């Protein structure tokens, strides 16, 4: 039976949460008690004397030289003997006994902290209820270990290699000792509550043949009994008829010896189940051998760490829970379906969706479990993460059933981008299975591309393959691609800081190629950075370039760029971006430039490049008027030349009218909107996705026909991020 691993993960998590407090207390007290048991073994080893070679009769004889009456003699787990009785001088009490020297000393006692810890460990100071809770915790702990082992096997296999995950590797190491510890604890609890199988001890009783009074030290039974085998002996209340010695041996045997004759009148040998229980108890408490107490000490201590690492995993997953926003629309041209285990696949999917949207392609983004194919959509991209050794993400354990409910457009094409790790034998197997099933069962013509460890180069190839499979034009994927060749040197010639933006103007050390135009991208990698960031460029007639950088808090690249001084040289790569070039045929026609914030970057160069009678409009949204100051010179010249006939600067934080966002201009001035969408006009948008979406919604709502016509004619150019 192939049970989905998510059940076990949830069970594992729930169990851990349920027993966390009880287990924590039990383990902390267990660490202390196993330390005590270990120190006891050390004491026993240090105090090892020849006394164990004596027989009980010899010791009794010896004790009679010091005591006038004896009540009890017992050995504790540390091998220390205690004798209770009345000394010859009449003092009554308990004394410690060192067998090799026959010296009496202060009776060994159990430290208060040990009693306290024992009570905590055994019952949480809650009596019977506490014992039940502790027993239940031990049972659930066993279950927790079981689910953890099952998950490890399911996800990481039985290769015997380390997984590199502390919680998993340590859990595997601790599995057996913790299982023994928990089982022995469960056995003790079971006995306490009468669940341990009981069978009667072997009990032999002997009738007294006659009264042959002897001195106790002459009893044959004591002469033949080694002290090493003795656990506890109680003397009779009085040496008279009907009284007896009670003897408990370490193997659990209990003898009753007649006080006068020395005959064994009762011999109770524990049953197998009782012996097993006793042994389990000794193992659990570490009394059986120092090996166990040391093992429990180490296991308990590391189990605390195990709990902490488990909590960290849960917490980090909770904190990095994908905060994805599904975007679903019936008019989507591309559907991206995400099957993600931990959320990182969502990041890639959202990135791709932004690139599509930035290029004016409508995208729907759905989690696989909630995806329902749009009958009209002909392009579907599946981003499939692999879980474990080749499984689907846990929550998609029934993905095959899900697929059976889907119906695609007969001409739809699919692309499966499968994420995985080549070190697993079944590399990206889920994506493979998904592509196979989509092709065979759903009739969706599907291409599979596997991405190893989310490598940038694999992703880039996947992107190119996706564009090819879905028959989309060449789009630049502004992704975290590794540094590439073709870098050139540039020197900063001017920098103006405006609010949270900085305008940088620079010149190439070697002049630009003729093909480089405003709207192309500059790929920059900050010192110590591992990937390029893309910025839209303005190319000016004087062969200088400019870009507007939005300063992000903690942004590695923008912070670095902001720190550059005039004269500073840096390396960068120019990446052409033809879909955002201002075409020659449009020059002279009416162009409406719409941007917000640093989206002005490519437009300044474009505006400068326009002819004097261009009659263009610029709608630019900034937070404050001051923030636009760096562009005053260029825009002023453009106004003078008649390139710009209208400049709308929208200030969101200083708005004095209803015009707060760029789309508000088109709501308030319908003529401007209609002029922008006229058959000879062109709209260019650069800035944030949110702004682009709002603009599109506004035009869709108020002028949908003209808007759709503009889009279809390719006069709607967008480059958003």
């Amino acid at each position, binding site marked *: 039976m192939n049970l989905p691993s998510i059940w076990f993960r949830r069970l594992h998590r729930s169990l851990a949460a349920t027993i966390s407090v009880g287990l924590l207390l039990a383990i902390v007290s267990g660490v202390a008690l196993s330390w005590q048991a270990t120190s006891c073994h050390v004491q026993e080893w240090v105090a090892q004397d020849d006394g164990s070679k004596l027989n009980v009769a010899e010791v009794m004889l010896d004790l009679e030289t010091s005591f006038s*009456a004896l*009540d*009890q003699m017992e050995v504790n787990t540390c091998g220390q003997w205690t004798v*209770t009785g*009345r000394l010859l001088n*009449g003092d*009554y*009490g308990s004394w410690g006994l060192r067998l090799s020297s026959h010296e009496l000393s202060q009776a060994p006692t159990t430290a208060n902290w040990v*009693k306290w810890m024992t*009570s905590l460990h055994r019952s949480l*100071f809650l*009596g*019977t209820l506490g014992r039940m809770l502790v027993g239940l915790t031990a049972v659930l702990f066993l279950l927790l270990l079981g689910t953890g082992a099952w998950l490890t096997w399911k996800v990481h296999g039985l290769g015997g290699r380390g997984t590199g995950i502390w919680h998993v590797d340590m859990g595997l190491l601790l599995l057996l000792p913790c299982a023994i510890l928990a089982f022995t604890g469960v056995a003790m609890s079971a006995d306490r509550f*009468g669940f341990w199988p009981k069978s009667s001890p072997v009990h032999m009783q002997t009738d007294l043949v006659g009264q042959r009074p002897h001195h106790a030290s002459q009893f044959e039974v004591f002469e033949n009994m080694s002290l090493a085998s003795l656990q506890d002996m*109680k*003397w009779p*209340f*009085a040496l008279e008829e009907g009284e007896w010695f*009670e003897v408990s041996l370490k193997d659990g045997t209990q003898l009753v010896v007649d006080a006068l004759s020395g005959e064994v009148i009762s011999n109770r040998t524990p049953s197998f189940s009782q012996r097993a229980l006793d042994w389990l108890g000794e193992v659990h408490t570490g009394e059986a051998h120092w090996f166990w107490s040391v093992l429990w000490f180490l296991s308990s201590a590391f189990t605390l760490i195990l709990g902490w690492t488990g909590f960290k995993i849960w917490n980090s997953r909770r904190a990095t829970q994908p905060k994805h926003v599904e975007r679903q629309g019936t008019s989507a041209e591309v559907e991206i379906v995400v099957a993600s285990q931990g959320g990182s696949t969502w990041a890639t999917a959202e990135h791709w969706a932004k690139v599509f949207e930035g290029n004016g392609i409508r995208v729907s983004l759905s989690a696989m479990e909630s995806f329902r194919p749009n009958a009209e959509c002909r392009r579907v991209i599946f981003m499939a993460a692999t879980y474990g050794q080749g499984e689907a993400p846990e929550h998609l354990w029934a993905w095959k059933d899900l697929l059976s409910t889907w119906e695609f457009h007969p001409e739809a094409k699919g692309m499966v981008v499968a994420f995985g790790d080549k070190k697993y034998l079944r590399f990206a197997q889920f994506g493979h299975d998904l592509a196979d099933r989509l092709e065979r069962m759903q009739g969706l013509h599907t291409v599979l591309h596997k991405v190893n460890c989310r490598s940038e180069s694999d992703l880039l190839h996947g992107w190119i393959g996706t564009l090819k499979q879905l028959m989309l034009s060449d789009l630049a994927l502004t992704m975290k691609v590794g540094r590439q060749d073709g870098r050139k040197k540039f020197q900063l010639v001017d920098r103006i800081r405006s609010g949270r933006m900085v305008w940088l103007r620079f010149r190439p050390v070697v002049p630009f190629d003729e093909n480089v135009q405003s709207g192309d991208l500059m790929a920059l990698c900050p010192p110590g950075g591992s990937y390029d960031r893309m910025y839209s460029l303005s190319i000016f007639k004087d062969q200088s370039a400019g870009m507007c950088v939005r300063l992000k808090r903690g942004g590695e690249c923008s912070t670095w760029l902001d720190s550059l001084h005039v004269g500073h040289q840096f390396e960068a790569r120019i990446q052409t971006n033809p879909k955002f070039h201002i075409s020659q045929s449009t020059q002279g026609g009416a162009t409406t430039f719409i941007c917000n914030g640093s989206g002005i970057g490519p437009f300044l160069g474009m505006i400068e490049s326009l002819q004097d009678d261009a009659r263009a409009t610029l709608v630019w949204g900034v937070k404050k008027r001051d923030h636009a100051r760096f562009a005053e010179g260029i825009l002023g010249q453009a106004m003078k030349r008649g390139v710009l006939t209208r400049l709308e600067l929208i200030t969101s934080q200083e708005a004095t009218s209803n015009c707060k966002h760029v789309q508000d201009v088109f709501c308030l001035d319908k003529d401007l909107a209609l002029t922008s969408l006229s058959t000879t006009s062109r709209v260019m948008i650069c800035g944030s996705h949110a702004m682009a979406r709002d603009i599109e919604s506004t035009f869709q709502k108020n002028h949908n026909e003209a808007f759709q016509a503009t889009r279809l004619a390719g006069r709607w150019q967008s480059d958003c991020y």
Partner: protein
Amino acid sequence: MWLFWFLVSGIFSSDMAVRCMIQMKNYEGEGAYIVTGLVNEDGQYIRTLHVCGDDDEWYYELEAWWKFHGRSKSSVDGITGPTLAGGERTTFQFVIREDELDKGYGIRFESGVENEGHHPEEVVVPLTADLTKSKVSGQGFIRYVRLLME
């Protein structure tokens, strides 16, 4: 004058050791807490002689004794031993003064087992000069007690 005679009688009265043995019945469950105490003619505790059970968090369950001990907060160090499980026995010794004999006092055994019950006057043995060493049966967890004046 009364104070003088009281002090004098105290000085000249001698201590007497009493050996005591408790034999438990064969019951299932936790070890029993058993307090041995000297009581007056009204059955009120005068002094704690011995306590079986060294975990003081359960002492309150021996309600009658706890009213005396909890209030007086007298120490029981040195006169405590482990609890007694079913079938077990223990022997210990305590001290009484000679002037406490034949005054109507008694030696009272109060027992309690977690979730099994509490017997405030399980055994009460009159404290007389001819303290018998014969068995005195208990009403609850104790099979019998034996006392022997040394």
